[in-house]
């Protein structure tokens, strides 16, 4: 049975904002480049893979246009699915187009993103303005995005619910020294509508059931407001290598609170560039999350999505790039070409969500853990 993630719309909006001028300082248009990526995520009974193609081209001196095609092919027999539904396959296709217009020290951007799958459609419009200041040492970016989602059910053509999302962002990129660049981002997101997953259930203790518990549909609040503050600093080491540190604090009206940290080391050698990254995320889950409710309709709002549980995740990512076309010896109109292979190992320890496949006594099942491999192979061309 399909298992859409209503939060995908949020991802789209974030992607739309990412595609804006904030990705470069305002007085320079983004590089003209094309990327073709193969991505693969495998873990916890889920396999998701597919391509992504991104092309960016300058038109005249002050306009840059960008297009992206992205496909997720999903084959899922995840822990949620095997305990309450049936394994399924699904496709999600995403298109986006955008433009950046440069005028003096100001860049204005507009983006449109559309994501379509059999039971979930998401559309996002975003606008942003970046201003370069203080001798190009500072860039201030203001962004806004509006998203509209339509949630359906594969087994009920009449089922249709709406979500509306609004993102408000402010970003500051600051060069502090000739070796250090930093950025600060503050983002508020509001959701209103049908925010839970139409397929997912919560379990509650039920003495009349032979297994000791039963299921009922989950029920989330109709609104959510979240605030996130992120800080990054990238430093050029005394030799040719870079070290980056990141931190993000997140909190929302569902009482989720998290800290995310990452450290990245980048080391080039001739045409090769090696990087290693460690990322750590720790969160307190939503107030209405329970692995096992004491009875049916025990609380006003109920959820058992493992993403809303208390959890800790960590990722190690290794990445290797090789420049097969270098700036000095371009091929025709191509100035540079690069191939990159990245391998990520993700581990998630859930502190409340239990593994019901073990057959242990009710409420004493072992806590669930997830291990996944994340593979990316991509070619990048600059022209």
């Amino acid at each position, binding site marked *: 049975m399909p298992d859409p993630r209503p939060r995908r719309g949020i*991802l789209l909006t*974030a*992607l739309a904002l*990412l595609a804006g001028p*904030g*990705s*470069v*300082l305002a007085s*320079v248009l983004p590089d003209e480049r094309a*990327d073709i990526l193969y991505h693969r*995520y495998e873990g916890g009974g889920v396999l998701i893979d597919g391509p*992504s193609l991104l092309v960016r081209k300058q038109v005249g001196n002050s306009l840059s246009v960008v297009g992206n095609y992205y496909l997720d092919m999903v084959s899922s027999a995840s822990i949620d699915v095997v305990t309450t539904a049936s394994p399924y396959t699904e496709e999600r296709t995403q298109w986006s187009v955008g433009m950046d217009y440069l005028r003096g020290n100001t860049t204005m951007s507009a983006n449109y993103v559309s994501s379509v799958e059999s039971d979930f459609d998401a559309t996002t419009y975003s606008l*942003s303005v970046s201003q*370069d*200041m*203080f*001798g190009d040492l500072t*860039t201030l*970016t203001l*962004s806004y995005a509006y998203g509209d989602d339509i949630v359906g059910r594969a087994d009920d053509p009449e089922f249709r619910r709406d979500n509306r999302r609004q993102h408000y*962002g*402010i*970003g*500051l*990129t600051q*060069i502090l*020294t*000739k070796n250090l*660049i930093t*950025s600060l*981002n503050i*983002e*508020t*997101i509001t959701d209103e509508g049908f925010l839970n997953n139409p397929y997912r259930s919560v379990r509650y203790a039920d003495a009349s059931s032979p297994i000791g518990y039963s299921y009922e549909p989950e029920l989330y609040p109709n609104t959510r407001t*979240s605030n*996130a*503050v*992120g800080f*990054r600093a*990238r430093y*050029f080491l005394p030799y040719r290598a*870079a070290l980056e540190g*990141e931190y993000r604090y*997140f909190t929302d009206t569902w009482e989720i609170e998290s800290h995310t940290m990452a450290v990245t080391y*980048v080391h*080039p050698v001739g045409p090769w*560039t090696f990087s290693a990254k460690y990322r750590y*995320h720790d*969160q307190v889950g*939503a107030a209405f999350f329970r692995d096992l409710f004491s009875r049916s309709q025990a609380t006003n709002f109920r959820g058992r999505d493992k*993403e809303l549980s208390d*959890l800790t*995740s960590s990722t190690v990512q290794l990445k290797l790039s090789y420049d097969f076309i270098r700036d000095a010896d371009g091929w025709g109109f191509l100035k540079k070409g690069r191939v*990159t292979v990245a391998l990520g190992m993700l581990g*998630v320890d859930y502190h409340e969500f239990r593994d019901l496949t073990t057959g242990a006594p009710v409420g004493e099942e072992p806590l669930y853990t*997830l291990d996944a491999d*994340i593979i*990316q192979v*991509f070619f*990048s061309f600059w022209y």
Partner: protein
Amino acid sequence: MKLAKLGRIIVPALLLGGLSGCGNVEPWVKPYERDRLADPIMALDGDPVSSAFLKHVYEAREGARGGEGAAGGGCGCN
């Protein structure tokens, strides 16, 4: 009283001076000192197609979202 009068002159003068200074901040990292910042290894988002994918991976599996996006790579060195 004298101090208050002095303050009425000095504070606006300092404010005015400060504000006018904002328009003419002398860049403390000169354009010719930005070669390291211009190195591709210093880009905050050197591979946008990859970072968008990873952002998607994490936001689908964790409760948090946002706070990473608006600022990114580049240093105004070109």
